[in-house]
């Protein structure tokens, strides 16, 4: 187990290294940074001095090493546009995105999983067919359209939910949260549904097909033959066996939720990292783009690591290398 985690950590570091490489090349190939930072009236001498000061004359390797070293301690440089440390700006925006993503993921899982189990168990039920039809909409409608439809219905027509922004937030030592005010929760509802709907349908369909698969297996038949209660069979034996693929997909989807919050944040003017990233793209603010890239990669890597460790917890067969040593019969 420990060896496995260490191996995984090394792989994760490797992934992060390559992402950093890609992020770094952005600085080199997307325009001249000095050009972006100074005004038209800056003289050539001043430009060269700035170039020197920023270390842009050093060999590439040295620059890359410096970039990685700084990134490792959380220093992502200054935003070209705002002239503020990028790390500081990201940290300001991080809570909004993370809270939105978390609520979306919980929503997707809390609704998708039971719906999947239900449609798996009652394959021919009317309600199952209804869920499946609805889920097609969730899969095929683009996110921004769902968002706009929600705004039209609940903000414009009914006027019950705010159409943009985070509502009132409470500052908890730098972490500004939506969770402590009614207003904040109300502001979360529509963006979370918009962001989580696709994941919800995905999870529901996945759980359903896995349930159907597992319910056909011999050990489920044998469990029935042993006279176990339906509850124990469906939720103990069957559901647990569907968990490995569900954990994988849910984990990866959590990463996607964070990454693809960009669109939802734009639709709802949600002051998160995604919105900031889009603005940065418009202004060719490379430090922000590069840092965002690295941060998202970091989230993916961490989530993957957690998913891999969860496999171990769920499936004893993966613990095989440590276990068979003492008991083959």
């Amino acid at each position, binding site marked *: 187990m420990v060896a496995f985690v260490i191996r995984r950590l090394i792989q994760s570091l490797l992934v992060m290294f390559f992402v950093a490489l890609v992020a770094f090349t952005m600085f080199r190939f997307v325009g001249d940074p000095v050009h972006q930072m100074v005004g038209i009236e800056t003289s050539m001498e001043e430009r060269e001095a700035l170039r020197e000061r920023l270390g842009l004359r050093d060999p590439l390797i040295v620059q890359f090493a410096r970039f990685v070293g700084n990134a490792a301690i959380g220093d992502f440089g200054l935003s070209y546009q705002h002239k503020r440390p990028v790390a500081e700006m990201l940290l300001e925006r991080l809570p909004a995105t993370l809270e939105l993503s978390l609520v979306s993921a919980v929503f997707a899982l809390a609704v998708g999983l039971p719906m999947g189990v239900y449609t798996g168990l009652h394959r021919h039920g009317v309600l199952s067919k209804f869920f499946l039809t609805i889920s097609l909409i969730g899969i095929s409608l683009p996110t921004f359209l769902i968002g706009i439809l929600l705004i039209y219905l609940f903000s414009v027509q009914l006027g019950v939910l705010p159409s943009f922004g985070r509502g009132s937030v409470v500052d908890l030592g730098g972490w500004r949260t939506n969770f402590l005010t009614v207003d904040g929760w109300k502001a979360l509802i529509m963006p979370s549904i918009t962001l989580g709907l696709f994941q919800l349908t995905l999870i529901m369909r996945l759980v359903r097909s896995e349930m159907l698969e597992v319910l056909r297996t*011999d*050990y489920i*038949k*044998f469990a029935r*033959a*042993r006279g*176990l209660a339906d509850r124990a069979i469906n939720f103990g034996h069957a559901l647990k066996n569907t968990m490995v693929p569900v954990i994988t997909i849910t984990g990866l989807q959590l990463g996607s939720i964070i990454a693809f919050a960009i669109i939802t944040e734009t639709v709802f003017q949600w002051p998160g990292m995604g919105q900031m990233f889009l603005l940065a793209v418009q202004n060719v603010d490379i430090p922000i783009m590069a840092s965002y890239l690295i941060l998202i990669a970091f989230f993916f890597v961490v989530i993957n690591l957690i998913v891999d460790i969860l496999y171990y917890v769920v*499936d004893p*067969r993966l613990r095989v290398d440590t276990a068979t040593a003492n008991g083959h*019969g």
Partner: protein
Amino acid sequence: MATPLLEVRNLVVQFPTRRGTLTAVDDISFHIDEGEVLGVVGESGAGKSMTGAAVIGLLEPPGRIAGGQVLLQGRRIDNLPYEQMRRIRGKEIGAIFQDPLTSLNPLYSVGRQLVETIQTHTDMSPTQARARTIELLTEVGIPAPERRVDQYPHQFSGGMRQRVVIALALCVNPRLIIADEPTTALDVSIQAQIIALLKRLCREHGTAVMLVTHDMGVIAETADRVAVMYAGRIAEIGPVREVIKNAKHPYTHGLMGSIPAVGHDAERLEQIPGSMPRLTDIPQGCAFNPRCPHVFDRCRQDRPDLIPVEDSRVSCWLYDRASGPGIEVAKARVASTHADDLQEAADV
């Protein structure tokens, strides 16, 4: 006569399909006494597994019992509500399935699966159930049960897993076990061990067994009586020695001729020409009539019911008092059939 442990009366199992209803088990009746081992043999698709599944009420939908009755100790169980039937499964009728290797849930330790089953059917505390589990594992011959109890199915070999499955089927002392091809998936050397174990445990506990298999060797070794199934019906049922040594139905006779035996002087194995009809086109009259060397007019028109002949019962018109040539003649005719005659019959 005392009430038999299990009585099946005129059981019919049907499958509605798009092209009409298939009858997988067609009007069969048999019984199993307390502590008795009834072998059920037949080719694939003869309806033997289906019969077993119908008895414990676990037919795969859309299959269903379309007629007849199943009685356990005189009480009808085929029409019980699901929840009541569930309480009977495992507790009064245990089951061992076709592939023991996949019968255990890979995510739970064998101990947990045993404890779970015991606690479902009894009031034992977790500690008692665990103690009983270790006792059971010892009984089925698993070495170091105290350690093995917390291991997972993948840590057991096929034979050992099969022993666990047997422990699971026997854990609350059911009166009857339905063993559906319990050894088919195992190595030949392990098969004998498992059959011996099953036989010993059932004798010790007085458990009756309905042993479904296509392996006549296993039947000869284990069963008290045997039912031979063909195309959803019982062709012949009787004491195992009688059926093997003195087969009365032409199909049974052919079946016995097709078993290789060490030291047997036959130059080649006999085979029954043709194959069992599909459920969609079972011929009129006796289902075996197109392959039967002794076929006569009546076989092509009417379905024979089981006719008592000596200790067995046979569904063959040869043994009918009115239309047959007389029992002795019929027996002699069937017994003298050889592969060549069978071949001729098929060619005609």
